[in-house]
């Protein structure tokens, strides 16, 4: 192989400027890239109407969330906390359509250790699953979901969880696990996403949220942290609304 000489190597540097702006992609040179308005996260608006659910579907998901995380005197249930709003925005966004995931065929059923291999997106699962559950309720219980008693709803949820209820065209257990995961995420995620209304879930457990600096508290062992939670969007105290 030809020897690499220091002189040849240095000669290369004179050509640096010639390439600027040729290939696409940012060229980082001279200083750290910085913009006055950094890339804003695209948090979905939580106000306004439903983005994904129909009104009856939304009512159904709110009712389910209210059973998965029931209300108690201190803390609202999952429905009141906004978990259905959270799920609605998520399904209308990238999560609902599996954006960014590997979706090339063939889709082949594998072993559990190989992970999910379904081509069905979360949006498709909810759309088909809620419809199938609604008709199952009408056929088997003679009522819409929201007309069932809490005890009846719990019984159906337990049946889905155990894989004992067969829905038309949808795996009931898969639907149940997806809804349970999403309801819990909505309950505990920052309220900017639509759930955890008024930071109710964080207040319930004592999580201070996006407070960021605990230097004064590291060494205060076995003492309850006294301050209320703060969201990425701030705190009601800040606007005098609390």
């Amino acid at each position, binding site marked *: 192989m030809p020897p690499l000489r220091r002189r040849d190597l240095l000669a290369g540097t004179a*050509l640096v400027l010639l390439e600027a702006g040729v*290939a696409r992609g940012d060229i980082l040179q001279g200083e750290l890239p910085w913009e006055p308005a950094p890339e804003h996260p695209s948090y979905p608006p939580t106000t306004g109407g439903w983005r994904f659910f129909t009104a009856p579907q939304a009512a159904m998901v709110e009712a389910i969330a209210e059973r998965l995380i029931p209300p108690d005197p201190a803390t609202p249930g999952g429905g009141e906390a906004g978990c259905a709003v959270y799920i609605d925005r998520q399904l209308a966004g990238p999560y609902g359509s599996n954006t960014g995931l590997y979706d*090339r065929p063939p889709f082949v059923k594998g072993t559990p250790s*190989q992970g999910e291999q379904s081509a069905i997106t979360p949006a498709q699962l909810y759309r088909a699953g809620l419809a199938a559950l609604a008709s199952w309720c009408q056929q088997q219980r003679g009522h819409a979901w929201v007309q069932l008693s809490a005890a009846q709803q719990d019984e159906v949820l337990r049946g889905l969880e155990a894989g004992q209820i067969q829905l038309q065209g949808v795996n009931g257990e898969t639907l149940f696990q997806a809804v349970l995961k999403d309801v819990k*995420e909505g309950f505990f995620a*920052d309220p900017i*996403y639509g759930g955890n209304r008024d930071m109710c879930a964080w207040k319930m457990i004592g999580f201070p949220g996006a407070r960021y600096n605990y230097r004064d508290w590291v060494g205060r062992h076995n003492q309850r942290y006294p301050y209320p939670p703060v969201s990425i969007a701030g705190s009601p105290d800040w606007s005098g609304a609390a």
Partner: protein
Amino acid sequence: MARTLPARDVVIVGLGWTGSILANELTDAGLSVTAIERGPWRDAPTEFPPNAAQDELRYRIRHELFLQPAQTTFTFRNKMSQTALPIRTWGAFMPPNGVGGGGVHWNAETWRFLPSDFVLRTHLTQRYGARFLPPDMTIQDWGVSYEELEPYYDRFEYLCGTSGTAGNLRGQIQPGGNPFEGPRSRPYPTPAQEQPFSHTLFGEAARNLGYKPFPQPSGNLSQAYTNPLGVRMGPCTYCGFCEWFGCANYSKASPQTTILPVLVRKANFSARDQCEVTRINTDASGQRATGVSFVDSSGAEWEQPAQLVILAAYTIFNVQLLMLSGIGRRYDPVSNSGVIGRNFTHQTISDVLSFFDPAKFIFNPFIASGAIGMCIDEFNGDNFDHGPYGFVGGGYMGQVQTNGRPIETTPVPPGTPSWGAQWKQAVRENYLSALQPGTGVHGSMYSYRDVYLDLDPTYKDRFGRPLVRITMDFHDNEIKQNHFLTDKFAEIFVAMGARQVEKQYRKAPYSITDYQTTHLCGGAIMGTDPHTSALNRYLQSWDVPNLFVMGASAFPQNAGYNPTGTLAALAYWSADAIRNRYLKNPGPLVHV
């Protein structure tokens, strides 16, 4: 048709930790260097500003800082007899993406490997006899010793400002540090981080049981620090959003907070982001790299000629580029020949959940840093006599809990329903008084003949290139190791006063869905014999001497520690060899 850019002295593939280190060293040597990075530019003010960084859903659950599987992924199977299927969403590990690489979203646990780890086969064979090792275990010596690497570990720790307590200063065992570590030439640059309640309590219980606990070496700094390049960092605020997140506070060591502010201002350095290298080009002889081909963000193809090619991507992508470029002979597990794809490993992690009386214990789990924790090293590497136990390897263990983020960290006692009033009440009662260390048992994974990387016959990436196929399963040795370590770990939580402890042993088969760590290792390993290693002891390709391959892909097997300290030390070691030996006389640095 690819267009050709003006030649550079050096092209670096990937601008994470090792790419940044090599770029800084080689520009200091006067070379013109360009780095090509697949992902975007990332820095605190533009990508994870302090007013938006603490977002568990966005970063932890939706994986915002990571490579997207739609860009490229891998296929996976446990056994050679199975059909591999694609990883459609990340699970067992999280491939990084963007400037800074894994250095952006790591926890900054900054360990050194044990001296015996570098001569593993020799050491274990001498102590226990060759027959003590499983016949299909393919562990090897590294070809470099701890003593040789020590100055380079030191350089990386002083670059990062690592906070810790020395356990062995030039052979003298120090109180409060890890007595099992190799000798270090000087103390850590900054003192250990102050420890929150649960971590302190673990340390006390471990000490009472006769162990020698010590604070985990941390790249989340205990105090302000100015590194040798003049870059300044601030003290960690224990925000509890570290691993999976970027540090908005300039407190976590990363290329952005230690090297890039200096590197980017050098006239002989440039980098391109959002450009993916698709091939290392070689001349007709196949023994000299001529540069790389890459695809820019508009899909156009380019060639970047260079005299020296540094491969500095994530483990599997290094291996993939070698395979797709036809460099080195691909490993064949059947004939046990070839080197590219050989000795692929991960880690053997497990956890113990513990539940304490809420009336007596308030842990405030949200007060934490990424590399916080008290650890013990009695059961790592060969720090204990394995003779009675019938396995080799081990790991550190510790209360290393990094967060109380509630989507991930709301543990409930075993037997609690997964929803409903009882679940809600259990979450409320236990949040402040339960412990979930995460990677509490950080075990080694040794290499085996049937655990390897090759190219998948079916699935392709967005450029139509074959995905890398992972064939990996746990072997009995690692399962035994994990059982032994997890039991020892759980005893410490009982001694801390837990009223209920749940051991979560690591079980076979290896699952691609359960997050362990992102510590994939091997596939392009270093060594002393070109028949069993892809690289010589300086990380130089045996086949193409003007190609050097950085990263944990060079590890012949994985030790019971986080890999970043070691892969960064190897990068400095390799850069030193390039600067002081290769440039004076380009060609193979080792002759066999």
